[in-house]
């Protein structure tokens, strides 16, 4: 299958492992990624007030760029900020014709409000299917990974606009992790905020949030945390670094390991992975 791919601002810079591991697994699963050209930042967090036209322009431009590249393909994105912002922008423009008409004057071509935005984990669930993933995975490999699935704040909310999974009782990450053979922890703190953008001017807030999250992770005897968000990844690894004995992974890195891809190709340190795998014999 073919998908359009919008990497956003982080996937080629601070989250290269995420990009790299995604490309590796897509190769294995016969998914062709077509990166849209000439894209900009989506604007980070979605502008929530009623007078948000100006800030909707950047994400709307990306949607138009996708429509121009190939109107029949779905637009896949990985970063939860991008995913959330693009989906909510699409929702607003689809629903609000007046806003769409005004914005259209500022876009390369009018937006048809038909682009379907998907997250890679959605493609796994709906197009590839967990059964296929289970069959292709070396499931015994991931036995030592006691994973706490971490959704963070943006992946699912608000549910009526994102329509990925239930916002309070989701299972999309858990199901995928089960399919690849991890020991999945039932993790009640999976939506707790990592401190988000406050790390920029009030790092102490992000520090407290991330450390609290890791304390819970420890209480639940998880030895790693899995996320889809480059900012969660950054905050948690920055503030949890030395105090906690844990590892944070992008979901695609674990899927890649299960599919038998070498750690180094997924942006992972083989030594760390070996430790996990040898630990699994102790359990």
């Amino acid at each position, binding site marked *: 299958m073919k998908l359009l791919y919008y990497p*956003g*601002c*982080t996937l080629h*810079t*601070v*989250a290269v492992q995420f990009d790299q591991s995604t490309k590796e697994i897509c190769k294995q699963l016969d998914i062709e990624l077509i990166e849209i050209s000439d894209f900009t*930042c989506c*604007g*980070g*967090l979605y*502008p*929530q*007030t*009623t*007078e948000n036209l100006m*800030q909707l322009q950047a994400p709307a431009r990306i949607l138009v760029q996708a429509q121009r590249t190939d109107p029949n393909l779905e637009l896949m994105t990985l*970063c939860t*900020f*991008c995913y959330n912002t693009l989906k909510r922008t699409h929702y607003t423009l689809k629903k609000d014709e007046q806003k769409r008409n005004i914005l259209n004057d500022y876009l390369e071509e009018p937006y048809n409000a038909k682009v379907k935005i998907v997250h890679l984990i959605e493609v796994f669930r709906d197009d590839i299917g967990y059964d296929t993933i289970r069959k292709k995975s070396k499931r015994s490999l991931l036995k030592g990974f006691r994973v706490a699935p971490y959704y963070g*704040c*943006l992946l699912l*909310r*608000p*549910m009526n606009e994102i329509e990925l999974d239930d*916002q*309070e009782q989701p299972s999309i990450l858990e199901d995928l992790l089960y399919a690849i053979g991890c020991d999945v922890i039932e993790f009640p703190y999976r*939506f*707790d*905020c990592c*401190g*988000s*953008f*406050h*790390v*920029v*001017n*009030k790092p102490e*807030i992000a520090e407290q*949030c991330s450390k609290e999250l890791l304390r819970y992770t420890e209480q639940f005897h998880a030895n790693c945390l899995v996320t889809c968000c*480059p*900012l969660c*990844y*950054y905050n948690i690894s920055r503030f949890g670094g030395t105090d906690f004995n844990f590892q944070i992974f992008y979901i695609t890195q674990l899927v890649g390991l299960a599919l038998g891809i070498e750690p180094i190709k997924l942006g992972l340190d083989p030594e760390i992975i070996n430790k996990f795998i040898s630990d699994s014999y102790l359990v």
Partner: protein
Amino acid sequence: MSMFKKTNEEFVHEVELLSGQNLFSCYQCGKCSAGCAFANFMDMLPHQVIRFLQLKKVEPVIDANTYWYCAACLTCTTRCPKSVDLASIMEALRNIMIRENRPYIQVFSLPVEIIEGFPQQAAVSALRKLSG
């Protein structure tokens, strides 16, 4: 007395317009504050912001740091039993302050080295939410 040209009534009306919310939908259960990850840093809890606005007491709300400390995580919006979109109310407050030229941070007050080290969406979001 308000430091704006707006009266308190006008201010509250603008919050309602920008957020698209009816402030009187809130029945003060406090569930939003209970789940807010930033509540212990805030001078005024999220549900108290709504209460003050219901009573048209604007000054204590704008003096509090609550709406600047809100990270727009939508936890409160998700859980409110009355479907009040509190995250949008916080955003409306930020927007009004930014329009009044009273942003929380100045773009140029952040050293470039600091911004460069972060995932870009953190810097973009912080600047968008806190300085317009």
